[in-house]
């Protein structure tokens, strides 16, 4: 049996935030993340309506999103790094302007550290960033991540490990300045 409209809209409710968040951290742009999230669901439905199967919605949608992000990188390869960073800055401000009460409750120190982790994540190579955000923000297992980014589970584990070392290195370096 195929997937009904209602079932697909339910999947949308469950995964739209996660997909959006993933795109946001990969692209450092709220607008692009919004567009790609919408596109991911339209493309997902296109696949399903032609008889495609969606046994594991999470895996299915993140794979579509991963491919869309790769396309987006190819398209905007010409963007200068400054521009990308600037956009990331804007998006960050915007994000924090919308504000979450949780942030206000936490200490200033904690906020600063969160901000620094956020920047450090943004500076990871995309291969690492993809996996780190899937693993720690979306809480996918290495087994789930592997087919999404198209590498083996072992490679996923290695990348997580290396990414964490990199992040720790960046943060410690700042700490010691």
């Amino acid at each position, binding site marked *: 049996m195929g997937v009904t409209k209602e079932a697909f*809209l339910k999947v949308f409710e469950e995964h*739209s935030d996660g997909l959006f968040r993933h795109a946001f951290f990969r692209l450092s742009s709220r607008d692009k993340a919004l567009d790609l999230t919408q*596109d991911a669901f339209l493309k997902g439905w296109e696949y399903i*309506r032609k008889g495609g199967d969606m046994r594991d919605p999470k895996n299915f949608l993140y794979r579509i999103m991963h491919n869309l992000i790769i396309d987006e990188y190819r398209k905007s390869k010409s963007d200068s790094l400054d521009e990308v960073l600037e956009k990331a800055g804007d998006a960050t401000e915007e994000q924090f302007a919308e504000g979450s009460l949780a942030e206000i409750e936490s200490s200033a120190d904690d906020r600063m550290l*969160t901000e620094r982790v956020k920047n450090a994540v943004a500076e990871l190579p995309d291969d690492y960033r993809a996996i780190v955000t899937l693993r720690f923000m979306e809480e996918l297992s290495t087994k789930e991540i592997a087919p999404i980014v198209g590498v083996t589970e072992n490679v996923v584990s290695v990348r997580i490990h290396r990414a964490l070392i990199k992040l720790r290195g960046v943060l*410690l370096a700042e700490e010691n300045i």
Partner: protein
Amino acid sequence: MRKINIKNYIQKVGTGVSLSSAEREKMREVLSEYIAIKPAVRDTADVRHRQEKGNFLSSLFTITKKPMPIALILALLFSGSVSYAAEGTLPGDTLYPVKIHVNENLQTALALSTEAKAALHGRLAERRLEEATNLAAKNTLNADTKADLSASFSEHADAAVTGVTKLSEDNAAAAIDVASNLETGLAAHGTLLAQVNNRSDAKSKVDVGDLVALVHEKARLVSAIRAHAEGNAEVSARAVGSASARAAGTVNAKSDASANADAQKTVSVKMGTMAKAAIANAEKAFAAVSVKLDAAVAAAVKLEISVASSLAATGDTLSAKGDFTAAFHAYQQAFVTVKKLSVYLNAAENTDIKVPAILHSDSSTEAKAESSGESNGNDNNDADSGILPNSLRIEGDASVETHAGASVNGTGGGASGSGGVQIGL
């Protein structure tokens, strides 16, 4: 030194980022709307196609039982995703007015140069034919929709013709490209439409014979302009002959001849670029539809593409030798081959029209269409819709040598101009 748990912080970074409820709501509405107009394929039979008339804002209001919120309408108008969603729609679909009134009007407004405008109108004319073919193939084309599509087709085709005519005066290379593209596209779409029209399984069929005739009429018009532009650029067989005759006969003709060579080079290079892009397109179209084709047809399509690729390579070789006229013809035939193929493959993807049927019917349908327009065949400019035979035809002047380009199409020389590039397999 402080021990920090990075994993927790990464998670924390993430928790602050989510869709706002307005964003989620808008996205959900768009998705829901998209699913409604593109239901699962097995449900398609149950979906009644509505014909919405009047302006598209009012049709947006009436597509759901309850009125659509203004915010959603604005979102629909300005969201790239909806424009994208609207692109594949057909008359009767909810978002079709968005495609016609928003997307296409925007494209028209953005096309600034004469070339871009002419090319765009050509593309839109082809699009109307695609839509008519798709609806006819599904037996959902009604008389009103057919009339609307014919009128819109005619309008765009005429605008393209006007543009190409203007171009042919001062930019022959561009005129030839746009005209070659349109002429081939029209011929292919005409063939498809005729094939759908002749199907015996149609239930409530609307005859599209008059639209097919209109398509062929426009194709002939475009063909005549293209032949004229080719004459201007001295790449038609006849023009080249007279140019070399002049070069041999007079001293002044030398500078003339080198100017000609430049013009020929420009035209040839441009055609080469277009041919290669078309080959890439055909490969893409083939990849998209290959699962639907049976092995023999897939092999035949592959063969066509490889023939086009080797023609383009021949064009490169001839071009390197400085024989731009011959190179032009090789490129042009490469282009014609894959452009037709792309039209057929796209149709096969979107409808149940079978590619082999198209390929088999190709030569006969076209030959018929062309022979009917062939009665006054002695007039040079009254070209029928066959790019190569026309440009390669030797028009009475026995001294004109058939140049290398003729070798790419052995059938071109006859006075009857057998027409139609040999796409049959």
